[in-house]
């Protein structure tokens, strides 16, 4: 089992509130492997949980650390990192 970790900076102008949080949690769910997300030095939460993600209160420019477990971990994190660094509110 491979584990991969990545730290990115959020590019969505309105942070990870309703719409971007939904897109992100949906993408994690679709990926089908366990992914956690943590903000700064905070505790990791299940990234497939829209409520968990919203509750992080992620703002534009915050640093997030993603950890995925599974054979496809690297490619899943590539996709998720791109999603998070793009602005979805325009």
């Amino acid at each position, binding site marked *: 089992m491979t584990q991969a970790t990545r730290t990115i900076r959020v590019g969505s*102008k*309105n942070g990870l*509130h*309703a*719409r971007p*949080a*939904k897109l992100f*949690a*949906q993408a994690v769910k679709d990926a089908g492997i366990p992914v956690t997300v943590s903000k700064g030095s905070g505790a990791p*939460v*299940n990234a*497939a*949980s*829209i*409520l*968990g993600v*919203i*509750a992080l*209160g992620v703002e*534009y*420019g915050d640093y997030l650390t993603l950890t995925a477990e599974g054979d496809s971990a690297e490619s899943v994190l590539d996709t998720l990192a791109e999603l998070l660094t793009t*602005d979805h509110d*325009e």
Partner: protein
Amino acid sequence: MSELRGVGIGLGVAQGPVARMAEPLPAPEDVASALSQDEELARVREAVAGVARELEERGSKAGGAAQEVLEAQAMMAEDPTLDQEVATRVAAGKTGEFAVHDAFATFRDMLAAMGGYLGERAADLDDVAQRVIARLRGLPAPGVPDPGHPFVLVAKDLAPADTALLDLDKVLALVTSEGGPTSHTAILAREKSIVAVVGVAEAPGLADGESVIVDAAKGVVTTQPTADELTQAQNRAEARRNAASAPITPGALADGTAIPLLANLGKPGGAAEAVELGAEGVGLFRTEFLFLSASQAPTVDEQTKAYTELLQTFPGKKVVVRALDAGADKPLAFLNDAHEENPALGLRGLRALRASEDILREQLTALANADKATDADLWVMAPMVSTVEETEYFVTLARDYGIKTAGVMVEVPSSAIMADKVLAIADFASIGTNDLTQYTLAADRLLGSVASFQDPWHPAVLSLVKATADGGAANGKPVGICGEAAADPLLAVVLVGLGAATLSMAPTALADVRASLLQYTRDDAERIAAAALAASDAASARTAAQAAAETPAD
């Protein structure tokens, strides 16, 4: 008959039978479950999945932004963290209903504690919990009723999920017991031109099926109306329909005083529709759209093209363009990337432009180019000017680039109080009532918890409007309004009474404001304004203005 009072949105009047939105279900009691834990959990998961599918279905019917909201709600229903919380409670012997109620409440409280935008998502979560519990109990889901005939919808307030599928052919009017002029219901009513009275404290007393008259112009719901009252309301509704289809005339008071009605626009593409709705020019053209989606500033050529497209639509007419207003709720990476604890009090508006003067210089160059290429009467103003010195800076710079008419936006109390000195320099001022209210009452526009302070009817705001208009009059310079306040038909009369020379608003509000102004002379407007100004809070200012508007002068 009896009259229930609230805040009317718009000028309409309608009548019909009441249909009430189903009341929220009472919280489930914490009693021991008679089922096995497996059975309870299976029931909950079936209900959760059912609700999620129903929300998705409603979403795909509604489409657009509503679909996004409903799909997010469906995801919340099936959230794995929530499922775990529910399972823990069921394992402890709770009923499915109580487990759902209690688990959702944990998240709800957490979101509510975060306040602002996230706090508002707490209501979305409440809605999902209610739907799941209703399904577990075999009860109809709370929400918009469908009595099978047109009705007056009575509710506490409308949630986005409710408004998404509202059949506008069936809803004659909206009455809410909660919610103010900036609530979801009010926004929907303005956008769709639905007759609405919000914040009617006694609305919960209205019974299903009883006939009422909903009078938005007066902010009154009449119960047990007489035949005479019904006829009058009918006539007024018809007169208003005729007025809406009547030829569009320039904005004016009953005595003929011209009050040009202008449009607030955010894209050149909206200009044609604004002209159709009778806009006599543009009172506020926001240039942010050119910048917000870009990772770097657009070029002078790109900007020239966009401004030219806009100015071409208004030959010979006034078009007021606002220089880039970034910062606070509209951050721009290339303009100000620094984290600020209080961005509304930070490097925003003209302050941000001044710190990146190249962007301002390029924008002024593009505007001057577009002005030369077209016949519109271009005015340019700076956002959020807070000092006389800033006024001088902007006006001097704009003149250097050949901008003929340079002005400032009054959004900060300091500019309003110093208006005589500001307008000795600037060619004009335009009052942004949303920000002026925010800064006068120290209430963040984006923060739901202080939304009740965000009322432009507050006499403190009205005093500052008057101070600005007086400063304009002392210098022979025009002062206009380009905030949402100008779209409120009665407040528009008050603003004119305080000395505003022009009103600019969302194009859909033009017809109502035009009709409202035509009912009053300048003397009336001044008398109504004085009544509002003498009040001690927003609600009594509104009531005083309404009373003065209904009483003819001696």
